């Protein structure tokens, strides 16, 4: 019995080849799905130009057939970057939602938000528009408590 247990597994001189095809197909499909998600996250961040774009570097060496390990590494990189980008976007949209609520409060009660200013960028929209709580008729308005929200639009002309 000990002889049987000690006997080496396999046959000497016969090499076992692992069939990677199924694993490779799965990884390629995962990369495809993750690239789609990456595109969706990228498009969702627009027009927030100051936000870091999710970027996954290439593997180097031009277009080539990647090894199984490289495909796994690529899949993990993509998944990690997408998760980071989603989290950053989620944090940003929460702040934008708060700013939208602030604009509504400014509109309802301008006197409570004297001199407050919110820009289109603060609510994740393109353009140079901003909402600014200012007194009507300058000093008279300040003394009398006549406050209003001024909505400006249009970007300054290029010089």
């Amino acid at each position, binding site marked *: 019995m000990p002889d049987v247990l000690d006997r080496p597994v396999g046959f000497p001189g016969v090499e076992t080849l692992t069939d990677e095809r199924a694993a490779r197909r799965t990884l390629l499909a995962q*990369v*495809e799905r993750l690239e789609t998600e990456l595109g969706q996250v990228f498009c969702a961040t627009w027009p927030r130009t100051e936000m870091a774009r999710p970027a*996954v570097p290439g593997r180097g060496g031009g277009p080539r*057939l990647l090894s199984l390990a490289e495909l796994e590494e690529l899949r993990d990189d993509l998944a990690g970057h997408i998760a980071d980008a989603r989290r950053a976007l989620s944090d940003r949209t929460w702040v934008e939602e708060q700013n939208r609520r602030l604009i509504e409060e400014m509109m309802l009660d301008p006197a409570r938000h004297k001199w407050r200013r919110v820009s289109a960028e603060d609510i994740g929209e393109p353009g140079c528009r901003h909402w600014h709580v200012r007194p009507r008729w300058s000093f008279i308005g300040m003394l009398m408590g006549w406050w209003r929200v001024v909505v400006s639009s249009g970007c300054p002309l290029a010089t």
Partner: protein
Amino acid sequence: MIDLELTDGWVEPELAEEFPELGLVHARVDVRPGGSPPEVKQRLRMLADRYTGGKVVHMRQDPVPWAYRVFSRQVGIDPDQDRTPVEAVALKRLKQGGLRSENVVDDALTIAIAETGVPLIALDAERVEGELGLRLAREGERLGDVRPLSARQLVVADSQGPVAVVLGEVGEHAGVTPETGAMVLCALGVKGVPRISLEEALWSAAETLYTDASA
């Protein structure tokens, strides 16, 4: 009337197994290169007017550009660094404020790529030997005896060796020159891109080249 004979290139079995829908369609065009006629320049201007920042940002979600982005990623390229041809054209348009005319061959490829999203290359028909196809570069192989290729790199090859890198540069030894008498236009097909798009890209480029010839 243009007479264009489309031919399917061969694909190395190992590559075909990894990417079953990978393909190369090519066609010979008996046209000499030269300057672009006014009609082609006008077409470039009209094409440039169609681009806006928002459209370029969302281009990556359009089916054909997306398919080439996925393929780029799967072969180890970062499509945000080494842009797919259609995105490169769009970015050039945004940076330059228009699409400048270079010569009729480059203009024809730009128009076809921008309209269909399919990457195209032009080769000198007289400097290509045998049938064209797609394969992996072999150990120590070079692109036109100049540029070293990494092992297992995806290349467009003829019977003599690699003539271009897939989604990359064309070897100088096989590229179009002012002395070229006839060209071979090649369109790369990947998963998610219908065959009709490849044919449309080749027809579009050939039509532009024949515009020049008939001018």
